[in-house]
């Protein structure tokens, strides 16, 4: 690293963060399970296959339209298990609280966690609380870890992905990212946009129960759809081509993106899944998704292609083809 201090780019979901994780953590902790960099590790225990994951939540503001840090801390971890094909079961919750945090706010956050856990069918079975002096953290940070069981015969693997496969998203892109951005001071937008923050276990479980054609899944959080599709294709012998016009994006999300110079494909989601599905199964998967309230805007957005290898391309709404990359670090509104 040429940087001698950590900057916000190191956590922004772009190239810097990926390089930083690989160079520092993966090198230091190296083992075959971690090296896959998947959303959850799959552990083979006698008689059982477990999925195990952890995530920390540091969001500003801690309460935002459509959710708060507590709801997010449950959804994020549940979703990381669900996209690995696991049924989420148990969570841990670690809280770092800043001296002076409003107690009623903490209550709202914890109640939201409890409610979301019930909806997701998981139990928060262990936890920890630390309070640090004022100024040493920003109100509240939460870490959750989660475990789930992977049913026998679950065939999800990036190795199965092949040209011709369909790429499906479960709903509109960018709602969470924009809801949080527009709640942040300094931008002063009024929108009806709410975070899509939701546990996906039920939606994904429903698809997996019925359709054997699903090959790979991710939830497009930081870095958005662009980061997920880049991860899918990086270093692989195939490419990805999506049709911009087919990607569902709310009109108000589009409008704010135009104004601030953002790409909706770079914005975070917290209640959406991207699936790679055998071509012949795509219609069926879409149908199942659309019957679920969290999947009613599901859409087929593109295909896995023969090439160019390792590259994600977008056919724009006027017909040209361009490349799609991870966002360059922290998303900054631009006027130019």
């Amino acid at each position, binding site marked *: 690293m040429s940087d001698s201090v950590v900057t916000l780019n190191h956590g922004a979901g772009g190239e810097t963060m990926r390089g930083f994780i690989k160079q520092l953590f993966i090198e230091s902790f190296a083992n075959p399970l971690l090296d896959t960099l998947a959303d959850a590790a799959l552990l083979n225990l006698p008689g059982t296959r477990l999925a195990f994951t952890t995530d920390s939540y540091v969001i500003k503001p801690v309460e935002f339209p459509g959710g708060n840090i507590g709801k997010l801390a449950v959804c994020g971890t549940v979703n990381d298990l669900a996209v690995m094909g696991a049924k989420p079961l148990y969570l841990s919750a670690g809280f770092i609280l800043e001296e002076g945090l409003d107690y009623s706010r903490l209550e709202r956050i914890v109640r939201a966690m409890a409610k979301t856990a019930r909806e997701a069918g998981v139990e928060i079975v262990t936890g920890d609380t630390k309070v640090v002096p004022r100024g040493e953290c920003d109100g509240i940070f939460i870490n959750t870890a989660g475990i789930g069981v992977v049913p026998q015969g679950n065939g999800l693997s990036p190795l199965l992905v092949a040209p011709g496969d369909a790429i499906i998203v479960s709903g509109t892109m960018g709602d969470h990212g924009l809801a949080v951005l*527009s709640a942040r001071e300094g931008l*002063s*937008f*009024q*929108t*009806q*946009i709410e975070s899509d923050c939701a546990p996906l276990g039920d939606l994904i479980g429903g698809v997996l129960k019925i359709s054997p054609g699903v090959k790979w899944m991710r939830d497009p959080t930081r870095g958005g759809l662009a980061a997920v599709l880049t991860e899918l294709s990086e270093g692989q012998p195939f490419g990805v081509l999506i049709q911009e016009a087919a990607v569902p994006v*709310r*009109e*108000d*999300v*589009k*409008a*704010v993106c*135009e*104004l601030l*110079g953002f790409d909706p494909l770079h914005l975070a989601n917290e209640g959406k899944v991207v699936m790679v599905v055998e071509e012949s199964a795509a219609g069926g998967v879409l149908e199942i998704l659309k019957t679920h309230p969290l999947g009613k805007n599901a859409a087929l957005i593109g295909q896995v292609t023969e090439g160019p290898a390792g590259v994600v391309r977008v056919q724009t709404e006027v017909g040209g083809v361009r490349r799609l990359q991870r966002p360059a670090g922290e998303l900054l509104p*631009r*006027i*130019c």
Partner: protein
Amino acid sequence: MCLAIPMKLLERDEQRGTVESGGAKRDVMLTLTPQAKTGDYVIVHAGYALEVLDEAEALRTLELFRELGEAGE
């Protein structure tokens, strides 16, 4: 340079107005466009309305493209 998009002026007072696009709203300064009326599209750049969009002209131009298509087909 100069990212600016058309937004509809919903209401205004002397200096400021509220503009809207696709359901997203924001307050903007109208210092540079004192003539802007409620219902106009204004071109918004960095929190200021830069100019009033001539909607009739915009639609007239689009009509020309349509005719272009019919002539060519």
